[in-house]
């Protein structure tokens, strides 16, 4: 009897050993960090209030914690209005529309109607909404159709006057078959900074930060093609521009900041604040002393919220470490 008990015990121990080996092998798997919901974490507090996007939902970041503003339902690219509300994109499979939202996420108004009951290609996109500083004009990227070529889908920057019956006005003329013009940044004097794409004779794609004084004008490039700059953000005093520049690399993008002279329409030489990273979507703090941006904390990881001091190179601080923020939605950073 005793011998049987020992034998049974040994067999059980052997089975346990085999199972243990199985789980030990599993534990040797590579490091796959789990992406957490913003509401499940706390982070280093930042002054004021910030809005970011993850998984199709807008989140408010205030006093070091996140609260969910909208449902997980295709929301992206929020922007602030001077009256304290938000304009955001709601993306569906074949189209996207702009909505005016309260800061609690309630839909106040649908601003565009881009779905079409007709063919798939007759739908439209609207992305990157931005209100002018006086709050009277809404700029956004929109895909007008080319009546001569169904395959051409280039975004152009359009502007709609708020609270008027006037239709939208095309501000920019995108280069054909480049994907078009994106990331509008309205200026106090009525001008517009944005990103323009071009493809050269060697089939190389270039992005440049561009400026126009008025709708339909040719505009001028603020950055050279070789810098590959995009996603401009302007400081509250409009004396500095933060932007993402890839310098021809398809695998990295750095955060640069340059002085901006609105009179001569020129940028000063850029200073690199963050290099050798995949930086996206910079945004200035309300006081202009800090830049928030998005970048992964490790290669291949989800995008996190970071800050940098534009006056001090290398002054980078990680605010979150285990989120998966939407890198095409620039943080909206407000006072109070």
């Amino acid at each position: 009897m005793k011998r049987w008990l020992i034998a049974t015990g040994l067999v059980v121990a052997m089975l346990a050993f085999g199972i243990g080996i199985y789980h030990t092998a599993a534990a040797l798997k590579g490091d796959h960090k789990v992406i957490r919901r913003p509401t499940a974490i706390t982070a280093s507090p930042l002054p004021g209030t910030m809005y970011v996007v993850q998984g199709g939902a807008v989140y408010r970041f205030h006093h070091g914690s996140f609260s969910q503003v909208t449902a997980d339902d295709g929301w992206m690219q929020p922007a602030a209005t001077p009256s304290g509300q938000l304009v955001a994109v709601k993306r569906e499979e074949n189209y996207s529309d702009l909505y005016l939202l309260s800061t609690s996420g309630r839909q106040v108004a649908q601003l565009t109607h881009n779905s079409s009951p007709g063919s798939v290609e007759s739908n439209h996109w609207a992305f990157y909404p931005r209100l002018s500083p006086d709050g009277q004009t809404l700029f956004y990227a929109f895909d007008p159709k080319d009546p001569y070529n169904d395959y051409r889908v280039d975004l152009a920057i359009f502007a709609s006057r708020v609270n008027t019956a006037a239709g939208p006005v095309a501000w920019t003329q995108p280069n054909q078959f480049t994907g078009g013009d994106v990331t509008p940044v309205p200026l106090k004097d009525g001008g517009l900074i944005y990103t323009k794409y071009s493809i050269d004779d060697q089939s190389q794609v270039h992005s440049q930060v561009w400026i126009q004084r008025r709708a339909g004008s040719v505009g001028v490039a603020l950055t050279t093609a070789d810098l590959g700059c995009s996603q401009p953000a302007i400081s509250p005093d409009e004396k500095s521009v933060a932007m993402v520049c890839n310098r021809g690399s398809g695998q990295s993008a750095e955060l640069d900041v340059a002085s901006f002279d609105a009179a001569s329409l020129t940028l000063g030489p850029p200073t690199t604040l963050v290099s050798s990273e995949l930086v996206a979507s910079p945004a200035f703090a309300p006081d202009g002393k800090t830049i928030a941006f998005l970048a992964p904390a490790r290669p291949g990881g989800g995008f996190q919220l970071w800050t940098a001091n534009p006056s001090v190179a290398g002054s980078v601080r990680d605010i979150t470490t285990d989120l998966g923020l939407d890198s095409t939605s620039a943080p909206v950073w407000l006072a109070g």
Partner: protein
Amino acid sequence: MPRAWIVVLGFLLAGLGGLGAYFFPVLQTAGSASSGPGQITALNPVSAPTEPFTVLLLGSDDDSKFPPDRLNTQSMILVRVDPATKQATLLSIPRDLWVPIPGQGAGKISTAYNLGGPDGAIKAVETNFNVHVDDYVWIGLNGLVKLIDKLGGVNLQVTNPVMDDFYPADLNSAGDPYGYYRVAVLPGATHMDGVRALQYVRSRHGDLRGDFARSERQQQLLLAIKAQGSHLSVADLPTLAGALNGEVKTSISIDRLRALMSIANDFNTKNVHRIVLLPPYTSEGWADGQSVVFPNWPQILPLVHQTFP
């Protein structure tokens, strides 16, 4: 046999059983997907490769529009890896390249796989480019999506907005395989899941460069997959193998794959040379009633032979 030895043997067998159970998906995939033997290899010691080698990467639209055994290759990328110098080269071969296909006459190089399987594709590349191919890897649409999702997505920089109003809705489509939907991949650094990454590398309608743009994006994605794969260990193979069972075909054995994984981190992105055969290496035209790409061999071959002996 002394009882102590029986007990030790029992524990040894139990341990091997645990390992076998864990790596079973790898062995299963090795048996079904590889042309090499599916022997129990997962834990053998392997030595890192030291000699340069060339792999032909093949990608096909394996949706329901095509019979599984009649697929063209929409993507052909020749990869040369030199472990000693830690240099690698990616050469994208245009899918519409008009070449002599061994045993078939002139045709688009994308049809070589359709007509002769992996061996046919390899022969077409070897004879036309005058290179030697050591191994091949074939992957279909769902395989690529699953691979990227199992890796946890990839990070890459979208160079410009990728807009397409006629993107094929054929992935897992139970309905019309000729249906389509709209794609807008927005520019900038981003994290992509498998479906979005596939859209990025497959879309071509809205780009001035057409298929050449796709080739560049495919190379970009390869580097992103390589970067993401650098986090993997041998213990990740069962999960990957389970997901990719039947979605990948390769001549690379499991032992060889482990050896390659051991050197993957040695290759910095900056040391990966990327070649796309744009004009003047190629020119567009018509042949046999089809829109094709003509090779300019006097320009192509010296370029290729700088890297691919």
